[in-house]
């Protein structure tokens, strides 16, 4: 599998990355190299091997359902670009 320039443009848009033509072409080469690597790995016979979803062979540790976090709104909002009446402000969202 190899990515077309249009594929790269789409991925960049989905990731909200602004890229010029030169950057898109460079990214295309790099991504296709990665796909080459993946193709090599795909060729390995993995029949009977359980797919991993994490690099560590451990299970998730669970937390008791108890409130531990105090209200730190003031501290968090002190470093926010814009706040009003306790709300974080962002450029208007149009639905």
């Amino acid at each position, binding site marked *: 599998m190899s990515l077309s320039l249009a594929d790269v443009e*789409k991925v960049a848009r989905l990731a909200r990355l602004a890229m010029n033509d030169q950057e898109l072409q460079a990214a295309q080469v790099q991504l296709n190299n990665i796909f080459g690597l993946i193709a090599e790995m795909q060729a390995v016979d993995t029949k009977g091997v359980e797919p991993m979803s994490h690099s560590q062979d451990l*299970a998730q540790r669970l*937390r008791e*359902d108890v409130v531990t976090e105090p209200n730190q709104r003031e501290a*968090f909002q002190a470093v926010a670009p814009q706040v009003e009446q306790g709300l974080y*402000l*962002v450029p208007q*969202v149009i639905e």
Partner: protein
Amino acid sequence: MQWEIVIGLEVHTQLSTNTKIFSGASTAFGAEPNTQADAVSIALPGVLPVLNKGAVERAIKFGLATGSHIAPRSVFARKNYFYPDLPKGYQISQFDLPVVGKGALTIQVEPLSGNAKPYEKTVRITRAHLEEDAGKSVHGDSQGVTGIDLNRAGTPLLEIVSEPDMSSAAEAVAYAKALHTLVRWIGICDGNMQEGSFRCDVNVSVRKPGQPLGTRREIKNLNSFKFMQQAIDYEVQWQIDTIENGGKVQQATILFNPDTGETRAMRSKEDAHDYRYFPDPDLLPLEISPEWIEQVRATLPELPQAKQARYVNDLGLSAYDASLLTASREMADFFEAALSAVPSQAKICANWMIGEVSAQLNRDGLDMAQCPITAQQLGGMLARIADGTISNSGAKDVFRTMWAEGGSADAIIEAKGLKQVSDSGAIEALVDEIIAGNAEKVAEYRSGKDKLFGFFVGLAMKASKGKANPAQLNDILKKKLEG
């Protein structure tokens, strides 16, 4: 030619945990904006999610209650999209390995029109997965900006996905209601639809029988059963009209406007559904041992369907009564507690619950949990009906007083002198007097005017100030009249 309607539901239930799914911030509803938005909720760099055991437990409960497969190992994945109420740029959800797999829910469907009879149907559950809720956008006064409240961000959700097994609005609503009852019954969700604790997305398509599935449109975020029915009815008609007029249904996400009763497509997002899921490297696989499942199973209450079966088989109630009595856990608990005072009077107890108690709650705009009388009070009154101390009409009087002023049945019966006269000597004396004083009518009765019996009952009741035991009075009167 008829059209066939195909409906599947995705229901987001907010789990009733104290804290968020991946952090120890409170989930209490209605707090000041962002006072419950901790570092994880607002996605400060470097923070890591730690899974809430209480959320997993609730997912297990749901799996057990629907006979679903509970995955011994499930995986959290990132669902990537950009929106200001989702500060990480992805929602942690589950994708190909959800915590709850295939199951089923059996529902009672009340057809909405015609003379069709209620029927039972089993809806298959495809899966249920854990995920985090997003924050809320607040479109306030300031021009050009939107306010973001992240208190809700990270609230645990169980998204319950059904197979497209429903073929009418009535079936979809019955399924949603059954699910709503169930999640409250097993205590995993408060079911508060106004507060968004139970939100339904409905996938609707139409086809000719035997044809492959039509293109579906998804009605988002329905938060009332009434709106769900209206939205489905409108949408089905719209799709049929569109196709019959030579058009084509395009896959879309749509919203229902309760003011106009219409559905309309949301601005189509060019890249919608390109979420680029991948396993979240911040979270290890979730493992659920058989021992844990058994521990959770031991905490499950008797489920609505099991209760209904027991009410029918052991208590001799009708299926209809049994379904009304198990409409909520509060209702069933109240019924059973009241019944414990009069174990042999299930039918009378059921009649009072479904009749007077429900009607009075309705009139006062209360739900079962707010009922002003206790099950013990009701049970005490039923015991006095059962042992003949009070008549049915006397009981209604007792009930009204109990409801308005409180007090035990015995105290009210005493205070109001409602004890019925079951002394046959006293009733006989009373009947004798009436027969003596109405010789003409007695003669008419004896010559075949049976209808007059009611007239005598009325007189006798009046003479006893309504306190005569009706069954006894009837017997004695009949005997004496026939002379």
